[in-house]
């Protein structure tokens, strides 16, 4: 049965909110990134990193977002749509999220979007999400490759939605949203309402592993693959990494010799004060 279409509150974007009792339409954005144990090698010409031999995984912060999306769906009913911008290999990450329990995926795959900045990536996500029924969007607080931490906020701005970043605790009652985040020296509780964008921080939950039946089922779940033209997005450059360089080399260190822990500790403290001048 077709669900009634409910309009958005004032100032809302061209999003349609469909709601049947408490059921929620959830979107979780994911990015495929090199595993944290990857040694990053810079190409000799500084044009980027060597991708050979990299093990690709779902961005760990996106896992928290997907987990929260699934928990919310299990509590309130509804479905979870995974959206990812990335090359062909990003399909594995979408399938991983489907294996965790999401219903369907949208894969935006276009060479012009590879290595795009946050503005372009958010434009692509916004274009793919616009027109979908959507109550809440989850993103990781940042991706561990570019470490920009921008996409969730930019996406929210483009869709005219409120955003709460770095969320470690989330409560939803009706359309009321209560989110907790850590700032320097305090924990802040922020109130907003659906629809909104939440960026997930470590501590929000413990992401589940995909079960074997989940993995089997995921293979048959629908994933819509679209290029930039299909969603009407043209890549633009606002900021670009013009050159990638290895980290500055550290001079070789000094191992303190001797058998007596007390003497070594004293020598260390002396070096920290007199040589390094840091205490």
């Amino acid at each position, binding site marked *: 049965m077709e669900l009634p279409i409910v309009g958005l509150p004032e100032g809302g974007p061209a999003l349609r909110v469909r709601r049947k009792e408490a059921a929620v339409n959830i979107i979780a954005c994911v990015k495929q990134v090199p595993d944290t144990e990857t040694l990053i090698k810079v190409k000799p010409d500084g044009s980027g990193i060597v991708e050979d031999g990299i093990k690709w995984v779902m961005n760990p912060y996106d896992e928290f977002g997907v987990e929260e999306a699934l928990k919310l769906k299990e509590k309130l009913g509804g479905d979870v749509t995974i959206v990812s911008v990335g090359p062909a290999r990003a399909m594995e990450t979408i399938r991983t999220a489907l294996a965790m329990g999401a219903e369907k995926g949208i894969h935006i795959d276009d060479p012009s979007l590879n290595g795009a900045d946050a*503005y372009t990536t958010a434009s692509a996500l916004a274009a793919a999400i616009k027109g979908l029924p959507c109550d809440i969007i989850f993103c990781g607080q940042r991706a561990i490759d570019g470490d920009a931490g921008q996409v969730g906020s930019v996406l929210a701005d483009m869709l005219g939605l409120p955003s709460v970043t770095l969320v470690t605790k989330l409560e939803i009652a009706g359309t009321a949203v209560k989110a907790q*985040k850590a700032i*320097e020296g305090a924990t802040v509780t922020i109130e907003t*309402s659906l629809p909104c964008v939440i960026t997930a921080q470590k501590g929000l939950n413990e992401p589940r592993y995909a079960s074997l039946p989940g993995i089997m089922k995921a293979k048959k779940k629908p994933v819509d693959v679209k290029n930039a033209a299909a969603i009407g997005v043209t890549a633009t450059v606002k900021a670009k990494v013009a050159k990638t360089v290895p980290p500055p080399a550290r001079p070789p260190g000094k191992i303190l010799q001797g058998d007596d822990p007390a003497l070594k500790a004293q020598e260390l403290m002396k070096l920290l004060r007199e040589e390094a001048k840091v205490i």
Partner: protein
Amino acid sequence: MAKGVWIVAEVRDGAYRKVSFEIASAARKLADELGEEVCAVLCGSGVEAKAAELGKYGVDKVYVADNAALEPYTTDAHAAAVAKIVKEKQPAILLMGASVQGKDLSARLVGKLATGLATDCTALKIEGGKLVAVRPLYAGKCFGEVAFETSPAMATLRPNVFPIVENAKAGAAEKFDPALDAAQLKTKVAEIAKDTSGKIELTEANVIVSGGRGMKGPENFPLLEELAKVLGAAVGASRAAVDAGWRPSTDQVGQTGKTVSPNLYIACGISGAIQHLAGMSSSKFIVAVNKDPEAPIFQRADYGIIDDLFKVVPEMTAAAKKLMA
């Protein structure tokens, strides 16, 4: 043409966050090179009188939005206020602190101003009259030099990296109306629970004492806390220690935790997994205490002690006490 180097100052509980002076000093340096002015945006409630203080660190002019809706910080209100004045005056460069607030605000401004942002920068330079921002990628496994195609070129600066330099300028306040539309303010702060434990924030700490799997359990972390207390340090942890449930996730240093740049990082019982090294390699001095001579942490350490941390750390605390007395 866009002109001027701008900063967004950060005030909490009536006082500037230290990073505000760091970005003001960095902005002054860039502005002098370009022969331009430094302007600050100051948003809050009852903050006008604070404008002059920014002059001490090289700020020529301060645009002040004084409005009850700007205190405490909310994304909506601050992003709207800053976007309004920036659109009107069109600076070439806009710097913020890479604090929780600065990162939240700057990302939202990318949407509002349709421009580029380099997050968590560790160096800035001017090339051909334009900003080039250097920032860690993959949590510091490599660095990227970011060039901008649009203005303002936005960058957030990692706290504790850019020196504070006194350079007295006018710091003249000019009020502006942030024209906040209540319908657009969709987030509000319900509660701010301050951490009263006196804990020092990891990303702002000058000294960090960190523990890993070698700590063997949560019951042993007081050893590090004692040393930290003597050194005025924050206590961090490796992912192993956090995932084991020994320490809260807010204490985690590394690629999936916090990236830190203290003057001194003391790693105790941390082997130095790649993802941990990524998060702390930009520390100015690194000390490693580990009984495994093969631990990769020793390749990054300036000073290493190959020994049992349970014997060494209490001696370090005792030695530090004597030295600090």
